[in-house]
């Protein structure tokens, strides 16, 4: 009953604080609308340099060697070579470890040479009208180089990369054909004038998004900005929460509550639960903005994935982390001004390094490594997983666990600091 009444009191105080409500709900809505619109074009032309690429080379012959050389020369990719199954490759890409995965099947070069030779032979035989040999040499099956793309890659980027691969492979094919033609011509028809070389592609690219449950989502600024700014707003709750705690301390309410048997902890718990509920409402509201409002402004609709409970679990864990942080700030800060300044600056720094403003995949390597210390990054990665990769509880559990650990550490820090002050 004490707890319920404490939550009721916080609800009353919050709903009568218009400025606080504006910060809590209007600020993130406006941020999402403005920044999603502003960043839409930027997201379409994301800097694609140094894209991590995985090559699974089962060919180890001229085609794969030439392809790798061409990719290195493009200075477009950071190449890693590994041997793994198709499914493992798909999983690696789906996890976001690499943006692109290339599988070059066994004997692709050999088959390419055979096919080139056959086509050349066919061409040369056409001079004599002999078709017997051609039918046995021409295999109608095409050779496939498999490409997997991380679901968060932009469509424009994917098209560019695919075109590049096609161009490189066409060149390799052409070289193969030319060398076969030259060989044959020198052997058999040194003086003949052959008909034009057949240039229809033998090797084609087979593309697919490497996402779970056959979901193919095209990421955009909506997919980034809605979860990003919702998390930012959730963590911004630390300012009103810390202010609330400091105000109670300054006006003697905390003193009075501390003199009541067992009440202060309940009041603090009531505060935290209230603010967690507020953060969940914020989250639901921002989802609605992504699903209903942004499409009205010509933006793509937010795809919220397949698992609403897992989505709200991440939101709940993020809300707990944010309120825990608010409690810590409120305990340590000595004045409202100090809490506002410290809380705001700290959340902005955590947001910046956590990939809220600039997504981590376009950050320099050093910043990518730093970004993993930010709880906003943990939340964002979990939301990415759900929105873009259709992750379930198992896949996002590490991020949820980190958020809960942050919450526990914040509470522990606040408790220890309070105890230290009490014994001082």
């Amino acid at each position: 009953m004490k707890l319920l009444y404490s939550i009721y009191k916080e609800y009353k105080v919050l709903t009568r604080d218009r400025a606080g409500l504006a910060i809590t709900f209007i600020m993130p809505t406006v941020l999402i609308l403005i920044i999603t619109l502003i960043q839409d074009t930027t997201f379409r032309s994301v800097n694609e340099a140094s894209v991590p690429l995985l090559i699974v080379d089962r060919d180890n012959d001229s085609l794969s060697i030439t392809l790798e050389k061409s990719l290195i020369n493009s200075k477009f990719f950071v190449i890693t070579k590994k041997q793994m199954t198709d499914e493992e490759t798909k999983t690696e890409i789906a996890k976001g470890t690499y943006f692109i995965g290339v599988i070059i099947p066994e004997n692709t070069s050999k088959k390419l040479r055979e096919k080139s030779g056959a086509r050349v032979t066919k061409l040369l035989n056409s001079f004599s009208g002999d078709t017997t040999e051609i039918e046995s040499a021409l295999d109608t099956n095409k050779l496939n180089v498999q490409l997997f793309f991380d679901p968060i890659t932009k469509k424009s980027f994917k098209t560019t990369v695919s075109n590049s691969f096609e161009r490189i492979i066409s060149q390799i094919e052409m070289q193969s054909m030319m060398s076969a033609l030259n060989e044959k011509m020198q052997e058999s028809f040194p003086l003949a004038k052959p008909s034009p070389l057949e240039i229809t592609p033998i090797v084609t690219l087979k593309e697919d998004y490497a996402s779970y449950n056959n979901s193919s989502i095209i990421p955009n600024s909506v997919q980034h900005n809605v979860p990003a700014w919702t998390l930012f707003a959730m963590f911004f709750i630390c300012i009103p929460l810390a202010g609330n705690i400091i105000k109670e301390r300054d006006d003697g309410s905390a003193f009075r509550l501390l003199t009541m048997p067992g009440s202060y902890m309940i009041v603090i718990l009531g505060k935290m639960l209230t603010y967690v509920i507020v953060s969940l409402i914020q989250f639901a509201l921002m989802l609605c903005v992504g699903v209903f409002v942004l499409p009205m402004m010509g933006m793509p609709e937010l795809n919220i994935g397949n698992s609403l409970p897992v989505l709200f679990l991440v939101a709940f864990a993020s809300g707990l982390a944010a309120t825990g942080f608010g409690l810590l700030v409120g305990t340590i800060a000595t004045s409202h001004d100090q809490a506002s300044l410290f809380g705001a600056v700290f959340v902005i720094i955590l947001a910046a390094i956590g990939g809220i403003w600039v997504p981590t995949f376009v950050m320099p390597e050093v910043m990518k490594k730093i970004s993993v210390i930010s709880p906003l990054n943990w939340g964002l990665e979990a939301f990415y997983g759900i929105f873009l990769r259709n992750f379930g509880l198992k896949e996002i559990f590490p991020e949820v666990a980190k958020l809960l650990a942050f919450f526990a550490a914040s509470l522990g820090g606040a408790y220890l600091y309070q105890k230290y002050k009490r014994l001082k």
Partner: protein
Amino acid sequence: MSILVDIQHVSKKYKDAPRAAVNDLSLTINKGDIFGLLGPNGAGKTTFISMLCGLFPTTSGEIYINGLTHKSNSRACKQVIGVVPQEIALYPKLTAWENLMFLGHMYGLGGSDLKEKVKENLTILGLEANMHQKIISYSGGMKRRVNLIAGLLHNPQLLILDEPTVGVDVQSKQAIIEHLKKLNKEKGMTILYTSHHLEEAEDFCSHIAIIDDGKLITQGATKELISSNNCNSIEEVYLKITGIKFRDK
């Protein structure tokens, strides 16, 4: 008379502080007393009250409330105490009714009993007509009266008042003091009162203790204290004992 509060050689020294805020303080408060704790700024009154309320531990010595200590049974000790802080410890955007209902619930009260108690107290202190107005719209005197009621809701045996009438008009001061006297007389409520209004203290308190520099300088029944010091008022006693020098640190 039985003892409600027994303070035995209590000291408190904050870390890094050059001297003890409370230094070997011993005194007793009997049930039914209106006990005035007087002293200049920085004398150690707030530290003493905080220890009495169990907010932080003593460096040495023991505080017994009804024979119990905060160490042995903090819950029982706190149940005995009602606190009226010097600050207006209320939520300005809530009404008087909402504030008192919340604090009543925090004391473990509820239901129609609490509602009746809140209404009764608001009526006695002349706030019935304004009870559904937000505290932010109240005058200083009205806020003080609500602040007082908040400490009375659970019928504490010991009511601790830290400057309960500071900054209020004569009418509100009169209403507060009269209500407290009535509670003491009719319900036997023990009151620990601190103030810089020495005339008010003399009129209100049955016993007075004066502390300075963390030490107990004198204590006794108000009238005896005046006569034994050959003075005409508590103010004279106070100045005679504590001197006239400023206590700026």
